[in-house]
């Protein structure tokens, strides 16, 4: 699923960055990479999302958020 399809507060793992290569690279430099764990903390207007990654909050516009694939993190026990 994509970020905009993810429920608020759910724990997620980034599984795909389908952005143009240069944009995906910058996202990686900022700390959002494949395998990164994140939570959606806020739904904003026009599909925008705020996600929490390693203590930081990132704002992503709707189009960008829709190009980030995530999966829910399964926790044992």
């Amino acid at each position: 699923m994509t970020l905009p399809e993810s429920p608020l507060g759910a724990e997620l793992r980034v599984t795909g960055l389908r952005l143009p290569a240069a944009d995906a690279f910058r996202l990686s430099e900022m700390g959002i990479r494949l395998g990164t764990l994140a939570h959606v903390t806020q739904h904003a207007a026009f599909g925008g999302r705020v996600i929490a990654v390693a203590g930081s909050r990132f704002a992503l516009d709707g189009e960008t958020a829709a190009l980030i694939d995530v999966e829910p993190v399964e926790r044992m026990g």
Partner: protein
Amino acid sequence: MSCHGSASAPVPGRSGHASLAPLPAILRVLLVGGPNVGKSTLFNALTGARQRTTNAPGTTVELASGRWRTTAHSTAGFAVERAIVDLPGSYSLLARSSDEQITADAIWELARSFSETGLQSGVVIVVLDATALARSLYLLAQVAETGVSLVVALTMLDLASTAADSSTSAVDPDTLAAALATSLGVPVVPVDARNRAAGGMSELARAVDAVAEHPRRVTGIAPPGSFSYCGTTAAASRQHGASGSDLAAELAHAETLFAWVEHLAELVKTCLAPEDRSPAGSSRSLPGSLPGPLPGPLPGPLPGPLRRTFSDRVDVVLLNPWAGIPVFLAVVWLLFELTTRFAAPLQGAIGQLVNGPMAAGVTWLLSLMGLGDNWVQGLLVDGLLVGVGTVLTFLPVMAVMFTALGFLEDSGYLARAAFVADRAMRSLGLDGRALLPLIVGFGCNLPALAATRTLPHARQRLLTGLLIPLTSCSARLTVYVLLAGAFFPQHAGTVIFAMYLTSVLLVLGGGLVLRRTAFRDVRAGPLMLVLPPYQRPHLRTLAMSVRLRVGSFVVRAGKIIVVTMLVVWVLMAVPVTGQHSVGHVPVADSLYYSVASGIAPLLTPTGFGNDHASAALMTGFVAKEVVVGSFAQSYAVAEPGSPARAAGLGEQLRRSFDESSGGRGGAAALAFMVFVLAYTPCVAALAEQRRLFGWRTAASALTAQLAGAWVLAVLVFQVGSRL
């Protein structure tokens, strides 16, 4: 290696070391860090008032530089002085904007200088955000790879220690700094720039001086074997469309740095853990250099359930899909009110003070010196003093704008504003923050131009700065009211509304045209923005920042305003007939009016090619408020203070506009209003454009606006007169 040491432990003493690097007379210090890490606050704390703002050579990127002087740690008792530059905030040295390019170039230049001359010409202070160590460490790794000597300043410790989900929460700042220093192998100084006395400034100075004498390497990062200016080439290739293989190579290298960052973060965690005091724990050090095989990221605990912070709770309201936009508009409305209604009485009071008691005082002094009632008095009182008074009357509005922006920026809301308004500005390829100055421009263009500094990229600042003069400031309203009332008394409200609508269309149309021509490189890229935590602005830091920015306006824009006022006075004071002496000339017999008469034929296709209109437009270049007064002066009638007087001026206007337009006075009046809207901002706004973007850009913008306004006015008149 032991993890638990002092943050200053890696700093050797100032003497008795075998490998001293030659030092320059004044050490150059570059301040580097990501956006919103407290870099500029630290810069202000280090330099105080000993700083100045200039544009980086050949660019419109603003750079603050200053002198950083300390005496406290000098054993000889003399002051140690350093030249410090506050480089634009950057996430990476692989630049993606002209601002980031300036940062990358400055660091690579320092590295090249050291590599080629062996002279330690400078030190880089890398500012690390304690709340986002991983992101900051990536930039630090890139800086370290260039081979420059560096010191780390650790900021945001107060926020890190209280953040519910920070990996460094509840960690003593000194302990964290010591752990980082030991892991990195370079000095790490915890700083609180808001506390200049005990915020670590002296310790930072000591660390910088020590590293300048004894260069150190960051553990695990290999300096360049042979010098190559890879920063610029990589960035340039990116900006001009890098090939896939370039990008793949950059990404592959970045992966090694990501691995280093993750490994280092784990090492720091280990250092902070009590059990690490054992010899086993201290044996986990980094390998000697990269690139090379690193152990994979150490297994760390998953984040687990989300721990909501105070900022998360506030954002539930401020970024809400329904409430976010109204809140943003309310903030912009407040800014608009502050820069117009709130500042207006202060501006009026200053104007009265300058034109009343101050002018009287100067006149009295001149008469005592035997210089009263001649051209010297006119030059000093009506030229110089009026110019200085104009600058002074703008001080409240600039101070209010800088204070409000500083408050929004320091509080953390400005980044949210960019997010909320992103969709609105996307069609122009601009950051959401551009909406704020564009709306403020409808109050006054001058503070709106000042507000462009909140935009993160120079090209976006420039594009926004070129569009702001097309926003119809409140001073232009006085012209609309006069002409709409005189020519369309039954539909004056509709005409004025149409002028504001025209202004919005001009901004949108101008933006789209510029994006397809001179600003093809400005694109609406994906919005990927780090939201800083909300915090209470620090009043003393804010006041200092406002003082410095207002001072820069006075020095750099103020002198242009004063010189322009002097030129206008000379034009008004010099007679073109022999019946008058210099300084005692009716407007109609002045050189000023003569120049206006020369311009009038150029305006014939617009329908308002008469001397009165061209003289008023020349005056409007100084300030739009005085266009009405200029009309009154040139028709030798009183300025309209009452409907009866306005009716008299209106009659005169109708007569001359009908005459110059062949009986199509209404169309000519509409064309005149469109011309006033589009032809040029006032001299103060032009001076601010020059201060922000340089002479060439300001002059080009002025020329383009004059030409565009003429074309629009001709169109309006030619179409309007045929309806």
